[in-house]
């Protein structure tokens, strides 16, 4: 049994992981930390982009296949392949061959997304032409993009296209049809989506519910690829594009810009059918396809600032070149994209295969409405109390200024800023910074030292932890309540005088190898501080005296003079 840790859609295989931190650096949401040599995912931050899977050289990260893939319990099993699967193979393999290969693998039916994509395009074209929206619309079928918006751009939730993705609609339709045709109970019909990315797996897992859930299971393309390839090798290939009468609607979803191209055609067709002889609206409609998270974020930043007002629709995809570049896709995205473009040219455009009256009926029925509202899930503030948050924000700034700023990652956080954030949220310790630790052991002058026990008794300080280390020599004293200042100036053997009582004082004292800490003004250490100090063998001493009084007495005693 190998050691595996799972987070959201991800599985981390500890037997393969060498702790190289490549995934931590690749993570676009900075959600990965290294703890005890292995990656740990801060799940609220993860947006399921799959960059960690892509980056891992040891193949230690895979996507999590839902355990409901116990396909044997179903009477009928239906496959819904995502469009990138159709363009994964050699040039002589057509989408119809891929569908046939899936049937040979045991799927009773292979359902095309064509009709659902047509309905979606029609409904979106209506929305675009209605001009009843403010600022650019943002496509919502890439779950990583929607999650990015939910966590970091909650102000833009209203710009998201209020339509469920075609894969959900297709799944509902096929289930309804099969229930009608076979009389089977809905839960006897297994619907399996074949996904190019982990985000659609999470999306399906989260939304799965006994009645409303569209899909029963999701298979990653890379897990079924080999079986499909084997089935294809036993078949006489027909190389046909797709079934009779279908259009390029589905394949447009495979790569960046394909959906916009199809939508543009649909908008023109719908505008000219409106009969008012005004093709003007369609002429003045702007589409902006954008892929990969850094570019997507730049565009979202601009939209948030009120720019890009001339754009009507932003087609946002997280992966390079769109879904053909998904992290669970096998083929290089560029040949796959070329192949999809080739198909798009050969297949009839969507408006030629669209039955407008029935598409209008579907659009009016509300079937395309998103079944699950997208709500903001912003990252939690530093503290639920505003006053504490302000204090922590200041502490974080201060800490950041004392960190080396080289983002080496050796502490287990991807950047110094993330470490500072983790420290004030009590998720990490300043002592984790190896650069500071290496710098920290400066040697103080070892003259006029005095044992800490002697200092304690002459000033009547009360040791509350680390009593076994009171024989340490005190080389001098330093008074400060700024952690960064102490890190920078308090050396080996120094007794630190402060009124700070939180957990991080222990880390700072250990980092700089201080003799101990005197907590002044009658302050008592927080419970976790005390426990940590005890664990580290660090003497904490309390006193009702002020910092001035303690320092003055020590000076009188001649300590460190």
């Amino acid at each position, binding site marked *: 049994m190998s050691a595996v840790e799972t987070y959201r859609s991800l599985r981390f295989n500890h037997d393969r992981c060498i702790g190289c931190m490549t995934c931590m650096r690749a993570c676009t949401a900075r959600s990965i930390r290294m703890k005890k040599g292995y990656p740990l995912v801060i799940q609220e931050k993860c947006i399921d982009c799959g960059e960690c899977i892509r980056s891992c050289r040891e193949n230690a990260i895979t996507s999590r296949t839902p355990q409901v893939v116990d396909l044997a319990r179903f009477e009928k099993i239906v496959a819904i392949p995502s469009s990138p699967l159709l363009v994964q193979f050699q040039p002589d393999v057509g989408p119809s061959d891929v569908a046939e290969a899936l049937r040979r693998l045991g799927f009773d039916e292979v359902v095309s997304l064509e009709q659902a994509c047509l309905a979606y395009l029609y409904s979106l074209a209506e929305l675009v032409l209605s001009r009843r929206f403010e600022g650019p619309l943002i496509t919502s079928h890439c779950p990583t993009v929607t999650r990015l918006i939910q966590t970091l751009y*909650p*102000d833009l939730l209203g710009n998201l296209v209020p339509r469920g993705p075609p894969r959900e609609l297709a799944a509902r339709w096929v289930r309804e049809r099969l229930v009608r045709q076979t009389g089977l109970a809905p839960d006897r019909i297994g619907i399996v989506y074949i996904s190019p990315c982990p985000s659609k797996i999470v999306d399906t897992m989260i939304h799965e519910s006994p009645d409303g859930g569209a899909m029963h299971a999701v298979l990653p393309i890379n897990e079924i690829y080999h079986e499909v390839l084997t089935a294809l090798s036993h078949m006489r290939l027909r190389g046909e594009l797709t079934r009779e009468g279908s259009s390029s609607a589905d394949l447009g979803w495979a790569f960046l810009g394909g959906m916009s191209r199809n939508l543009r055609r649909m908008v023109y067709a719908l505008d000219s059918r409106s009969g008012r002889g005004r093709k003007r609206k369609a002429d003045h409609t702007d589409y902006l396809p954008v892929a990969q998270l850094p570019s997507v974020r730049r565009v979202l*930043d*601009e939209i*948030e*600032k*009120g*720019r890009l007002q001339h754009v009507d629709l932003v087609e946002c995809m997280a992966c390079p070149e769109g879904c053909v570049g998904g992290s669970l896709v096998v083929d290089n995205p560029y040949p796959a994209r070329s192949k999809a473009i080739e198909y798009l040219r050969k297949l009839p455009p969507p408006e030629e295969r669209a039955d407008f009256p029935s598409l209008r009926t579907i659009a009016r029925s509300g079937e395309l409405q998103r079944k699950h509202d997208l709500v*903001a899930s*912003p*990252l939690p*503030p*530093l*503290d*639920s109390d*505003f*006053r504490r*948050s*302000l*204090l922590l*924000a*200041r502490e974080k*700034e201060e800490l950041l200024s004392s960190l080396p700023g080289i983002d080496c990652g050796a502490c287990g956080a991807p950047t110094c800023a993330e470490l500072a*954030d983790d420290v004030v949220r009590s998720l990490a310790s300043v002592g984790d910074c190896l650069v500071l630790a290496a710098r920290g052991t400066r040697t103080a002058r070892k003259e006029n030292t005095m044992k800490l026990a002697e200092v304690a008794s002459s000033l009547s300080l009360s040791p509350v932890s680390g009593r076994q280390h009171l024989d340490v020599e005190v080389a001098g004293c330093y008074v400060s309540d700024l952690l960064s200042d102490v890190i920078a100036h308090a050396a080996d053997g120094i007794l630190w005088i402060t009124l700070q009582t939180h957990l991080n004082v222990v880390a700072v004292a250990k980092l700089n190898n201080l003799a101990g800490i005197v907590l002044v003004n009658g302050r008592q250490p927080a419970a976790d501080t005390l426990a940590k100090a005890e664990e580290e063998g660090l003497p904490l001493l309390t006193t009702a005296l002020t910092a001035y009084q303690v320092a003055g007495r020590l000076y009188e005693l001649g300590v460190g003079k």
Partner: protein
Amino acid sequence: MTSNEPLFVRQFRFEGKDFANAGSVSTEVKAILRSLGLPAPLVRRASIVSYEAEMNVVIYASSCTATLLVDLRRIVLTFDDRGPGIPDIGLAMQVGYSTATQEIREMGFGAGMGLPNIQRNSDSLDVRSTVGHGTRLEAVILIPPEQAS
């Protein structure tokens, strides 16, 4: 303000004409205010104020020191620039008034909305300018008392 009230201060220094990095101050301001747990509409207003002020510097001035200050009661954004200054502040506050060049307008800036937008999103705004020297803008956004309690 009493001396033991918590106070957060962050300074930013940036250059004029640096369109490539324009907007980075307001992005940072937004992230900080969010981490403090301030309500979204407040964060949005502060983000708009800092973006517009930042763009004014990028378009017209040569360099700037911006300061974000937050205490329990207010957010204060200060933009202190070295630049040509504003000869007539009253005129600059009018919607649509702009001295931006054609090139700047072609980039989609300089529509004369900057200062009016800042004013609309601030609870108080103070602009002082010395022609040939620079401009100092201070915008205050009040934090509702229930937030601080």
